[in-house]
């Protein structure tokens, strides 16, 4: 009994130590990664491209919001992939080349722990990026022209106030980062990355205090909910204090994109044990291409064939790309999101297991 208890305590202590190691390495990876200018520039590119969509929209076929939403989600996937591959390359491949990885592995840290922590770190950076771009996508959709009919107005109405706020928020975030760098020599990249992300979340939240015509709440009845697209009725006498006209049905779809990014982060981390950033990015891009074309490529292939094996080994990105599902008021069920999460986790486990096996044989000298 004592021996059993001792064994359990040892196991628990070992687990605790592993968890502490995971947290320490992952935390350092996040901090180091967002210090790099490239991380901030990727986030800025994705946010600007998402916010620019309403600026360049001139056709009114009731599809403006959808175009903005799809563009935002596309930016999320493509730029997120670049960020994941870049971060993995820098935090794994470059650390191996520089000898930093050898210094860590030289401590009582298992290689599997190291790789898992690196993946968690990459995922952390991607998750921060995801928050910013999801908020920008919600804002961009709100700012696109919506067709409205009410007593004194019939036609398309955009939301220039929120769009201006979103651009101003980005500008203020950059200016704040610059001031912090100038006055207190804080790292510009970190301040700018977190600032741009926070500014978009803040604008999305603040936009709930006024409607798309710029009228501040509290408002009553129809005026309270101009063009929110929610398709719900408002009581004539109901006073509304806060009403974000954001299409929150985007959230599960965006979450699915995050799952896809988690899978590509795992793939990139595994690849980075052997390949440099550029090569890992190219392989991930190919996997994305095949993953998106999976339906056409592998649908009818027998399991025991090259195409069938490819279908089994490559992640089917179509599972994570459900933009069309919310096109005409549709909704993605949370049960589906959970199932997709399990699928993503399985893919991550597969890639990381292969990565660990490859990393075990890698010379770190």
């Amino acid at each position: 009994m004592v021996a059993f208890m001792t064994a359990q305590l040892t196991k628990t202590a070992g687990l605790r130590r592993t968890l502490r190691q995971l947290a320490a390495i992952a935390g350092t990876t996040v901090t180091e990664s967002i210090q790099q200018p490239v991380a901030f520039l990727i986030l800025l590119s994705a946010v600007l491209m998402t916010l620019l969509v309403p600026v360049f929209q001139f056709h009114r076929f009731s599809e403006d919001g959808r175009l903005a939403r799809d563009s935002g989600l596309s930016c999320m996937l493509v730029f997120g992939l670049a960020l994941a591959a870049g971060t993995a390359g820098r935090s794994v491949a470059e650390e191996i080349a520089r000898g930093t990885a050898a210094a860590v592995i030289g401590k009582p840290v298992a290689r599997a722990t190291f790789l898992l922590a690196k993946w968690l770190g990459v995922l952390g950076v991607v998750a921060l990026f995801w928050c910013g771009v999801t908020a920008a996508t919600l804002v961009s959709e709100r700012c696109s022209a919506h067709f409205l009919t009410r007593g004194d107005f019939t036609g398309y109405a955009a939301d220039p106030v929120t769009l201006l706020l979103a651009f101003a928020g980005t500008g203020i975030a950059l200016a704040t980062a610059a001031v912090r760098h100038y006055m207190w020599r804080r790292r510009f990249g970190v301040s700018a990355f977190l600032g741009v992300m926070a500014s978009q979340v803040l604008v999305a939240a603040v936009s709930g205090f006024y409607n798309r015509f710029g009228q501040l709440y509290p408002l009553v009845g129809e005026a309270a909910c101009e063009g929110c697209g929610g398709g719900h009725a408002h009581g004539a006498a109901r006073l509304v204090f806060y009403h974000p006209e954001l299409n929150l049905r985007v959230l599960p779809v965006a979450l699915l994109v995050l799952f896809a990014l988690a899978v590509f982060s795992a793939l990139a981390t595994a690849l980075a044990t052997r390949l440099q950033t550029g090569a890992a990015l190219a392989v991930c891009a190919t996997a994305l291409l095949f993953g998106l074309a999976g339906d056409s490529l592998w649908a009818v292939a027998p399991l025991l064939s090259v195409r069938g094996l490819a279908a089994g080994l490559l992640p089917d990105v179509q599972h994570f790309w459900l933009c069309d599902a919310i096109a005409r008021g549709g909704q993605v069920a949370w049960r589906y999101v959970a199932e997709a999460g399990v699928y993503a986790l399985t893919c991550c486990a597969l890639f990381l297991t292969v990565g660990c096996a490859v990393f075990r044989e890698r010379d770190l000298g």
Partner: protein
Amino acid sequence: MCGGVTASLRRTGGVAGLAVRAALRTKTVAALLVLLAVCVAVLPGVVKGDGTPEGELQILLTYTLGFAFGILCLSTLWAACALFAAEIDNARMQLSAVKPVRAAEFWLGKWLALLCLNALVLAAVYAGVYGQMAWRMRRNGWAEADRPVSRHAAHPVLPTPKEEAREAYEVLRRQDALPKGMSKAAVLKTLEAKADEKYDVINPGEEVRWRFRLKRPVGVKKAEPVTVWIRFDTEFSTREHVTGVCSLSVAGQPERAVKVDLDDFTQNEIEFAVDTRAFTEGTTGTGGLRDFEVAFRHTGNAKRVSALMLRFRKDVELLTPGGTFGANLARAACVQWSVLALLAGFGLTLSACFSLPVAAFVATLLLALTLVGNSVVQAVSEDDEKEWGNRVGIWISRGVSAATRPAMRAEPLTALTRGERLEVDVLGRAALWNVVWLPALFAIAGCWVLRRRELADTD
């Protein structure tokens, strides 16, 4: 002097050779080549066509080549952004910079390396697509009419948009109706753009005629097909059934006109070919045919059918044989290669100015803005401009389009798909702008920065 030039060429060659070696020995380039190979080999099989040879050709020429070119554009741009920036960042530039090599030689060497690599890769991609096409033609037994062609395209004999703009400007000036607050150049530019997009409206029962003068006579020694191609739109962009009669005749011989009845306009396009023997049989002339006239009469019922609209400067063409399709494919590759040369030059200059992430960010953002801007300019209407919310986007798009139009004017994939020969002047213009003039400007800027930039880090 001569020895100096030879030594300079050797140095430039040395820099280029190193960049080529670096590219060929990195896994990134190998992965890129695999991606391109997959694109050429797999994409045509993945994208679902409409089952017709025309559809298959469209997929091969537009999707496959377009996708491969897109990948090459991005990789060229990013590789160029890395060439100086990464070498400066990892201090390798220090060893080269202390040698007697001028900034221009560094710039030129690296640019030439990218040009050589792009030429090789582009040639492989085009050869792959050509091979796929030949294989599909043999496998599916495409009819002669379905096979890809290369044809000279002639447009109606009309004053150029520039001439028409000048005339319209004079009229406005005489009437004192020139817009206030706009410079002469801006007014002329607007008028020219309007002239280029000008529409002919053909009401039911009306007939329009266009005269053509070919640069090269047809039917000199043998019979050759002359193809009439017209694209139109109905007044309200509807797909209604419109009927008409189209005729092709040699100028001065209206009695020999070949008339074609048309009543299937679902594609909003008319295309028919006439053999030159229809005009030369029974005549003794051997000089070939050069002047033609195309007439179109709208025969629809005025009460039920709307008018037709067509941009007569762009939407009416007379097509005559112009070499082989393979040669046209090679010409398209040359045009795309020139665009890659321009991107390489642009990326190299950014690379001399900034660190790699910043250079790549600026390059990608400007590339995206160029693509969006040029699409917006084509799609935007006067009504769009009236809304103040649209104006920022339109101004940015027009600015970007004006700056990049000379470089982007040639559309090789559209020409390939439509079977139009890419003429020497198009190739020349692309070469002049994309390989000589703009890269020279970028080189001057890049070398200026390189000479002033500190190439070592701090202690």
